[in-house]
């Protein structure tokens, strides 16, 4: 598996950003590559690798952003991505990114990377925070003790990034001479004894430094153990014996004995290179943190975050929608007066799609995206996870599921991918099946534009609370099918950090661009298709096909059949097509309040959109995707049907 040691193009330098979670790898990546990957102040923002070509110092570099990993012994799917890439032999230089304020902890991975013996540079990121903590680092000494060069930088401000890459390129050109970490005598004797028996078959199988392989085996790395056992089971048995006796000598569990020795080396190294002087005064971030880490303040903040997420989107959305309404209407009247006939159908289709994007979707989407970006960047997400972990356990979920759940309010697709951060398969599957019930931005737009506009704030709040209750009910029901208990949460809580305008605005812009480039064309094409359908008169046939659902179960006009069908492609389409399907700009003239409620409830819950289904398939397999379709559709029919017949 880790055999091919060839670089695709020899002239191209391959640099990988590796480091522990939340140390700023993606921020460095974005600083040189433009905004290409999402960033946030919590562990596990990046779950798969992204590569791009960048031009630095007159040469092309293939730069790879890897998910964070605490060690090279991988546990969750995201960590495995990082480790497999680093071991693939494709990397020329590793940039080991470190949160300098957490230097001692970060050096554990650094030492493991040094053991791999691949050219590397250390990026001392968040250097300003470390200085504020009163930390001083002897960079030349770090170099003399490890052979690795280190560059201080503050990636969010872009300072030091250029020097970092220049150093990486220089290391690639001038060569790299590491100082291999040396352990206690009995550990070294153990390594030497195993190395002396290192089978040549294994040497052929693994194109990785032999000492590194032996250390991985001593650390009980499952993948290396499997490969070694397959290749030479006697050798593996010998490693077992060595490991057992090492554990006995030190009276330590077998699984932790090697790590504890490395930890001792890390502490020595840390004490040699870093001095911590007096801490600076309490920062504003710490003062806020003290408030929101308390149960009362924290729960108030959690509720406040949820409330502001939708209230801000609604109020600002209404404001923008009101502002653009007038100009769009007069443009429509102008068009009506100038185009007619079959060209008119095409033009009115395009016009409907365009105005729907500008007038209905974007006004609500933009404020929601801003709030979500602020949530990601400040570090509120892990704190919300802390507050609600205990509650979520009662519903078979995990505090770590908070990140996918809240991201789900933006878009279900990255939310389902974020479930990769959950270590246990059971937690992952439950979270993946629950996320499609969360009202993503497209569905939030529908709720705000229909329920918010026609039913009022009371019903809108009720719909959101009902939505949360249903999602929790689903996960609670699902978790009863599996008795495996996960051992509980272990999660990093980074300090609160101030958001940067240039990063938040880039994040929002990238997501709006996604809407413009992917969603808008679908909306425009569907818009034209709908106009053509009604022109040649086949919309009636499609509506009749769905009439058992629309008319009988949901008690809605059959004209909505086609709009609900189109919603499978993009949820916004249901809303956008509504006006043309019902042939009115004011939905309340055609639908009763109860019908609007049924329509909103059904749209929020029924079959996930195509993109979500595809992602579920990729992340969880066909079974999860199918289960999700069946689950969502039946829950939607049951709940919306009940509302239709009982309210």
């Amino acid at each position, binding site marked *: 598996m880790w055999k091919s040691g060839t670089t695709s193009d020899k002239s191209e330098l391959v640099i990988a950003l590796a480091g*522990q979670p939340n140390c700023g790898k993606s921020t460095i990546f974005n600083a040189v590559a433009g905004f290409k990957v999402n960033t946030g102040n919590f562990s596990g923002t990046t779950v798969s690798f992204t590569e791009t070509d960048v031009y630095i110092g007159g040469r092309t570099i293939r730069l790879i952003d890897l998910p964070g990993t*605490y*060690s090279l*012994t991988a*546990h969750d799917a995201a960590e495995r991505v990082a480790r497999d890439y680093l071991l693939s032999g494709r990397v020329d230089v590793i940039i080991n990114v470190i949160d300098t*304020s*957490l*230097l*001692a*902890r970060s050096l*554990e991975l650094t030492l493991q990377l040094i053991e791999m013996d691949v050219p590397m540079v250390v990026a001392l990121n968040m250097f300003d925070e470390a200085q504020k*903590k009163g930390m001083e680092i002897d960079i030349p000494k770090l170099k003399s003790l490890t052979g690795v060069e280190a560059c201080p930088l503050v990636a969010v401000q872009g300072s030091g990034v250029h020097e970092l890459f220049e150093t990486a390129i220089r290391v690639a050109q001038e060569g790299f001479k590491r100082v291999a970490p040396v352990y206690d005598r009995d550990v070294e004797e153990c390594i030497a004894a195993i190395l002396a028996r290192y089978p040549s078959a294994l040497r052929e199988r693994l194109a990785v430094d032999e000492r590194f392989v032996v250390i991985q085996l001593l650390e*009980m790395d499952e993948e290396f153990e499997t490969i070694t056992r397959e290749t030479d089971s006697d050798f593996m048995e010998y490693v077992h014996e060595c490991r057992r006796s090492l554990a006995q000598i030190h009276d330590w*569990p077998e*699984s*932790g004995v090697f*790590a*504890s020795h490395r*930890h001792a080396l890390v502490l020595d190294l840390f004490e040699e290179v870093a001095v*911590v002087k007096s*801490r600076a005064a309490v920062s504003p971030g710490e003062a806020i943190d003290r408030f929101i*880490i*308390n*149960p009362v303040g*924290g*729960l108030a903040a959690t509720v406040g975050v949820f409330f502001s997420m939708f209230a801000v989107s609604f109020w600002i959305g209404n404001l923008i929608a009101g502002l653009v309404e007038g100009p769009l209407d007069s443009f429509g009247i102008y068009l009506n007066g100038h185009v007619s006939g079959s060209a008119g159908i095409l033009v009115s289709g395009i016009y409907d799609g365009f105005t729907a994007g500008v007038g209905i979707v974007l006004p609500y989407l933009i404020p929601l995206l801003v709030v979500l970006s602020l949530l990601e960047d400040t570090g509120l997400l*892990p704190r919300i*996870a*802390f*507050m*609600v*972990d*205990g*509650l979520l*356990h*009662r519903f078979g979920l995990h*505090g770590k599921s908070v990140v996918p759940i809240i991201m789900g309010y933006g878009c279900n697709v990255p939310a389902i991918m974020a479930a990769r951060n959950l*270590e246990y398969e059971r937690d992952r599957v439950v979270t993946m099946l629950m996320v499609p019930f969360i009202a993503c931005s497209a569905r939030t737009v529908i709720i705000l534009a229909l329920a918010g506009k026609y039913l009022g704030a009371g019903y809108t709040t009720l719909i959101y609370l009902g939505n949360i209750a249903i999602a929790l009910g689903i996960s609670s029901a699902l978790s009863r099918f599996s008795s495996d208990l996960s*051992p*509980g*949460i*272990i*999660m*990093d*809580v*980074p*300090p609160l950090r101030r958001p940067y305008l240039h990063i938040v605005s880039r994040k929002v812009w990238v997501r709006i661009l996604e809407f413009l480039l992917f969603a808008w064309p679908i909306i425009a094409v569907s818009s034209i298709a709908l106009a053509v359908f009604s022109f040649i008169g086949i919309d009636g046939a499609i509506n009749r096909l769905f009439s058992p659902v629309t008319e009988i179960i949901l008690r809605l006009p059959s004209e909505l059949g086609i709009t609900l069908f189109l919603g499978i492609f993009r949820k916004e389409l249901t809303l956008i097509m509504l006006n043309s399907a019902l042939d009115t700009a004011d939905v309340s003239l055609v639908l009763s309040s109860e019908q609007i409620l049924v329509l909103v409830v059904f749209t929020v819950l029924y079959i996930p959109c195509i993109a979500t289904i595809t992602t579920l398939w990729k992340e969880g397999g066909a079974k999860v995707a199918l289960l999700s379709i069946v689950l969502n559709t039946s829950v939607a029919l049951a709940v919306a049907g009940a509302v239709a017949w009982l309210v």
Partner: protein
Amino acid sequence: MTLLELKEGDTAVISRISGGKGVLSRMAGLGLHEGKTIRVVQAAPFRGPLLIEDVLSGARTMIGRGVASHVEIRDDKR
């Protein structure tokens, strides 16, 4: 004595962590090793996790109660 028995604001030294390999190395990854001095900053409501601070670096981690009951501690005084 285990971590679970500490009150908010208490400081102690981790003397031993038991549990599966996954838990052990996840704790190690977050810098929670034997011999480390930690402080319980806050216990989350609804029998939620404990917020632990590494006294030396100020790094904070949340740990579920199940895991915390497997972390043995001793008094801070050496």
